[in-house]
């Protein structure tokens, strides 16, 4: 391939003409300061922080948006450029609230870090400030337009990765703000609550609705039995909040930390996952037999489910009616477990630790309440919120002894751990469904075809004399591609696993902000977190959900059999079309 010859800061190099100046500079170890740029999103060129000097050009050029050309002589650094960059950053922060110490993103803020790196030590400009109220209508995602710096990363992730197009820049000039259509509150928009806008926001213009106060309150109430449940993706990511490298397995330390925080009982969402697998595999086998409502669409990702209801209500009959592992675990805690131990379910306060922002929405869905009208899941905390609570309590997670989950709802097979990564629900369900369909015990249970963290994967399996067509999608633009194929008849699938977030739950909207050296949604982080879950699975003696002895027990003592009336009443749910309708 032809290369172009350029000079960056007195170093000559030959690079592909496809590269931008920013990318070419990275090859030399030069990290040009940047703000609106994100490698997985389209180029915006809004912030101008990444400007460089190119010989022959009167103006500075944005290095993220300028391709290299033969003979370019580029300077990324000179007193003039540094001054210009610093002026730009100063102008941005001039219009930004001066609330760093009380801001949720303090210490994790890209603007703060940039201002520090640029050497901004005083406020030189005193201009008019834009003033907006915090928009907190949604149970999951809060919008604070006053902090917004108009980098449009949220707009881009919402349309380019998630295909939701919920956000746009409204009005113009000084009045420009990012909001849903008609500046509607988030809970009246097509927002699916995935929280990726929170992840990509360099500041704190989007945040999850905070729930820690309610948890502190319940923890200090001696009358309440506070139960925690921990989603699989937490154990692979929580260490990052304590300066550990991504992918460190922290299951036992997390359990100990929760006990020290004062949780009376620590269950594992994994148990709920095992139960989901057994129910869903049964549902899948029955639909295959009756040849109806195929492909079966998985239902654990609440962001995906909300997307289904806004954008593809015609596919609602295809969605698995199984509740998510979180809601299943909450339900059996307040029914089966409470009954078994003679506890009044009203005294149980269920706190679910999730990598997910949409789980906050799921917990408040009307379908997930008991007969008395009380929610099965009382509060959902994101990984970030738990990290903060642990820090607030003065616990050093890295040096904690490893604790054990409480039984019976704390025991799980390797299948459950896979739920935290894209392709994992598929693999877990196949391990159980294939045995059900063939009546034989599986010896090789690693379904390599559905691993990896790519956005879309398809596979075919020969099972009991028929070919099963399966597909996996993460990131809802990819979900759209698969569903459109099914609609047009271009493809036939029997089972599709869908997860709203890139990489699945490991890339959830509630996961830790990236450690230094990584960017948000960095595939390297996602791979490491996913690998941690694969390692946990591989290291467990039991790896098929239906072999979990406590699952066998709960069916024997309480549920009857998979798909029984009790199961249906407690472990299954319904969905309904939602307004406003999404644009596909």
């Amino acid at each position, binding site marked *: 391939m032809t290369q172009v010859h350029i000079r960056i800061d007195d170093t000559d190099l030959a690079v592909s003409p496809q590269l931008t100046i920013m990318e070419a500079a990275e090859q030399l170890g030069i990290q040009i300061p940047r703000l609106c740029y994100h490698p997985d999103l389209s180029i915006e060129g809004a912030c101008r922080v990444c400007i460089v000097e190119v010989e022959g050009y009167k103006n500075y050029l944005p290095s993220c948006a300028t391709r290299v050309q033969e003979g370019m002589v580029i300077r990324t650094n000179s007193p003039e450029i540094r001054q210009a960059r610093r002026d730009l950053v100063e102008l941005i922060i001039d219009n930004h609230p001066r609330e760093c110490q009380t801001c949720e993103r303090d210490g994790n803020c890209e603007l703060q870090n940039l201002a520090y790196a640029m050497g901004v030590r005083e406020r030189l400009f005193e201009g008019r400030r834009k003033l907006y109220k915090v928009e907190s209508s949604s149970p999951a995602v809060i919008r604070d337009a006053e902090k917004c710096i108009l980098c449009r990363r949220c707009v881009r992730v919402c*349309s380019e990765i998630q295909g939701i*197009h*919920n*956000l*746009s*820049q*409204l*009005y*113009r000039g000084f009045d420009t703000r990012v*909001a*849903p*259509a*008609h*500046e*509607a509150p988030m809970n*009246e928009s*097509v927002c699916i609550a995935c929280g990726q806008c929170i992840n990509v926001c360099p500041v704190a213009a989007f945040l999850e609705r905070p729930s820690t106060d309610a948890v502190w309150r319940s923890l200090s109430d001696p009358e309440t039995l506070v139960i925690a449940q921990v989603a699989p993706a937490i154990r692979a990511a929580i260490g990052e909040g304590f300066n550990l490298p991504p992918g460190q397995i922290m299951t036992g330390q997390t359990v100990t930390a929760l006990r020290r925080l004062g949780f009376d009982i620590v269950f594992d969402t994994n148990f709920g996952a095992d139960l989901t697998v057994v129910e869903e595999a049964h549902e899948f086998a029955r639909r295959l037999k009756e040849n109806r409502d195929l492909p079966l669409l998985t239902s654990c990702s609440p962001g995906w489910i909300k997307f289904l209801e806004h954008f593809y209500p015609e596919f609602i009959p295809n969605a698995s009616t199984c509740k998510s592992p979180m809601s299943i675990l909450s339900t059996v805690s307040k029914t089966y477990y409470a009954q078994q131990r003679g506890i009044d379910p009203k005294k149980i306060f269920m706190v679910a630790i999730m990598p997910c922002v949409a789980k906050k929405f799921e917990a408040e869905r009307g379908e997930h309440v008991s007969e008395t009208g009380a929610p099965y899941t009382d509060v959902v905390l994101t990984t970030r919120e738990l990290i903060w609570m642990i820090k607030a309590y003065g616990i050093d997670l890295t040096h904690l002894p490893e604790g054990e989950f409480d039984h019976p709802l704390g025991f799980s097979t390797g299948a459950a751990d896979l739920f935290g990564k894209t392709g994992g629900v598929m693999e877990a369900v196949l391990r159980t469904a294939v045995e059900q369909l063939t009546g034989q015990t599986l010896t090789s249970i690693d379904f390599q075809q559905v691993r990896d963290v790519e956005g879309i994967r398809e596979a075919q399996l020969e099972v009991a004399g028929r070919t099963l067509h399966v597909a996996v999608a993460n990131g809802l633009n990819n979900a759209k591609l698969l569903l459109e194929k099914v609609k047009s008849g271009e493809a036939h699938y029997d089972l599709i696993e869908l997860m709203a977030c890139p990489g699945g739950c490991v890339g959830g909207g509630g996961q830790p902000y990236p450690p230094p050296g990584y960017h948000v949604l960095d595939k390297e982080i996602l791979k490491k977190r996913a690998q941690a879950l694969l390692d946990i699975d591989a290291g467990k003696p039991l790896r098929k959900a239906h072999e979990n002895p406590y699952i066998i027990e709960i069916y024997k003592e309480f549920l009857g059999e998979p798909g029984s009336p009790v199961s249906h009443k407690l472990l299954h749910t319904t969905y309904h079309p939602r*307004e*406003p*309708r999404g*644009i*596909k």
Partner: protein
Amino acid sequence: MNKTDQSVTLDRDIIDLMEECRLREYPESYLITILHRVQARYGYLSEQHMDEVAQYMQIPTATISGVATFYHYFRLRPRGKYAISICLGTACFVKGADKILEAFKTELGIDMGETTQDGLFSLENSRCLGVCALAPVVTVNDRVYSNLSAKQVPDLLNKIRFEDQ
């Protein structure tokens, strides 16, 4: 805001226009044309109409909202029976258009871009109308008032109210 009402309220010819645009290359590039037609028909862009355009054209509603709020030409609320447009071009401005604008705001109790409760008046701004010799200039619907001063504003409004009866 009526989000649940999915019944189509746009006139047939506007739907025909959209269907025609959908068959062309880059249908989304006709968005502004369509919004112009909607505003010309109904006087403003209602949320309901923008939602319908979104569904017909399969253009995200947020994108349409972004376009409709970006251009001053588009109105998001019904226009008053008498649309008062104050020229804020350079010549008018130096001759006191800002004071005239303030007078209208005070007299009517509304801000720029708003309509009075009785639906009679709305306030809009415009850039240079090209009659700078007559500055400062105000138009009410298609009528031009020239060499206006802030003092004359109450009389002008009363005159319109009187004629309206």
